[in-house]
């Protein structure tokens, strides 16, 4: 696995990219959900490593982070989870299909989680277990070298974000983009919403002038209708809070997998 796997994931048509907070409500549920999302046709799966103070998140994912940490999830737990998913081992209760998951994975977490682990050590572990890219929402263009240079040495994609307020910066960010460009749909934090920035088409056009790297739109998307509209503007859509909320409400790992498998199938259909 490598960063080219991420870009290749967009070759089969518009990409549905789900996000899960690892360890919420427990690691078994995350394992079951990731398998279900992969089977439903997710192009890439974003795995969130919980952080105590996730400043880019709205309440749904904030609370998921709190629950995951309270349940004992650590960065190493998440590495182990990925290792098991790639190896095709069953989950702890032995009820899941053992087929290895081959869908590209990207980590989404916060700078301090990676920095404190040691950037080099963190990237090595990503390669060992089979994660292909890294998203750090509070590491902008100005600060990315410290992380991106190490990712580059390990053939991992350091994924850049473009926001509705990025005027004048879009092309500089896009020129250095790897994996995909994460286009933030609206102002504010993550979380389900009804309205999005109005100039996304113009931003997409500016990104395309500077790079061939695919563009995925995220923040706030939850329904198939929204996914269809956003997918038409770009190469894929990212859905986080809607999935995290459903995983948290499920009574068991199997139920979470059923619910989210069905949801993901509908979203995959919608974005096509």
């Amino acid at each position, binding site marked *: 696995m490598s960063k080219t796997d991420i870009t290749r994931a967009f070759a089969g048509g518009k990409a549905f990219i789900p996000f899960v907070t690892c360890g919420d409500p427990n690691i078994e549920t995350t394992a079951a959900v990731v398998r279900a999302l992969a089977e439903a046709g997710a192009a890439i799966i974003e795995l969130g490593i919980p952080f105590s103070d996730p400043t880019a998140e709205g309440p749904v994912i904030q609370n998921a982070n709190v629950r995951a940490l309270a349940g004992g999830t650590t960065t190493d737990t998440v590495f182990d989870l990925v290792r098991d998913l790639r190896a095709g081992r069953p989950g702890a209760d032995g009820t899941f299909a053992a087929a290895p998951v081959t869908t590209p994975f990207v980590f989404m977490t916060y700078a301090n989680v990676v920095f404190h*682990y040691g950037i080099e050590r963190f990237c090595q572990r990503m390669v060992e277990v089979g994660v292909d890219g890294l998203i750090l929402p509070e590491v*902008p263009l100005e*600060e990315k070298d410290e992380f991106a240079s190490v990712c580059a040495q390990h053939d991992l994609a350091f994924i850049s974000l473009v926001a509705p307020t990025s005027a004048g910066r879009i092309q500089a960010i896009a020129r250095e983009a790897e994996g995909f460009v994460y286009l933030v749909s609206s102002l504010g934090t993550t979380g389900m919403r009804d309205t999005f920035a109005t100039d996304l088409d113009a931003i997409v056009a500016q990104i395309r002038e500077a790079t061939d790297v695919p563009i995925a739109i995220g923040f706030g998307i939850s329904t198939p209708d929204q996914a269809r509209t956003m997918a038409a503007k770009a190469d894929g859509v990212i859905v986080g809070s809607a999935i995290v909320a459903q995983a948290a409400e499920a009574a068991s790992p199997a139920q979470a997998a059923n619910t989210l498998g069905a949801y993901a199938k509908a979203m995959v259909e919608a974005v096509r």
Partner: protein
Amino acid sequence: MTNPEGRFGVHGGQYVPETLMNAINELDEAYAFYKSDPAFQAELHDLLNNYAGRPSLLYFAERMTRDLGGAKVYLKREDLNHTGAHKINNVLGQALLAKKMGKKRLIAETGAGQHGVATATAAALLDMECEVFMGRKDTERQALNVYRMRLLGAKVHPVDSGTATLKDAVSETMREWTNRVADTHYCLGSVMGPHPFPTIVRDFQAVISQEIKSQMLEREGRLPNAVLACVGGGSNAIGTFYHFIDDEDVRLIGCEAAGRGIDTLETAATVNTGSLGIFHGMKSYFCQDEYGQISPVYSISAGLDYPGVGPEHAWLHDIGRAEYVPVTDDEAVDAFEYLSRTEGIIPAIESSHALAHAMKIVPDMDKSDIVVVTLSGRGDKDVAAIARYRGEDLHE
């Protein structure tokens, strides 16, 4: 002291979501212009002198000096500023800057409530909207300041996330800024966060050491041997240190909140117990666990109850220019009571941390030595909490 990328040694930087980058770059450019604009400086100077009451007194604490029996103790009376703390120095500067930039709304975090009150005050004066984010726990332990802010026309949002204290108030204010950035300035209260905030806030607080220096030269004809200030994020401390950084004979002593002690988990002494990390927009020292999760810190003082420290302090620590010492709740409360009885001055519990350390070192110093302790704020807001600490059933 800042290099072009907003770094202090390895510390500092701009670790914020892309959504905010244009806003902080715009702030950086505006500040670069206005800091050397004579008209802006004249307007700020007028506000500081004729509204906030500067220059603040440098008071010779004669009874305290006699009682401790060592160095002469001077108190820099930031508690006498309008709104009762040093916070107004920074807030008037930032609010005026924001106004010049065409911003209509100020948002701010607050711990003890002093920065929130100062921001609400400046917003009232300059006819701007104001919303303040304050940890739920702090709204309870500093209830009077919450009402004060509302009286000044600000909206106060209690924050329930995380530990419901200053750290979470900062996170929530950052989130709100990403929500509405075009007409809004984040009036950050300390020398922390992403560049250019640590530099802007330091420059606006540097008036403290500028005045100490000239007042001391006038009074004593010499510089002090040591200057002391409490450190949470570190704004009154950097203000107290700044114009002495190049005077190598002047000891710079920052007093951190040790809570129940630095060998316990209930502490907020970041330099003494933390490690290098990236959080709230900056690289600096933070209290954190083995996986980089930010620790739930503790101090009796809501204003020092923060798991990080400003990047310039981290750098002054690295190069050995400043010392950072821990002071416990007990020591701070003793100093709070001591100054009240000895000098008739009730200090903020934050400032009492610096006083407590002065009380430790002054007796061993020479009688010809001089120390300056910055009284960053007044203690009216703390009276009920200290009474409860001493076992009295007193509520505001």
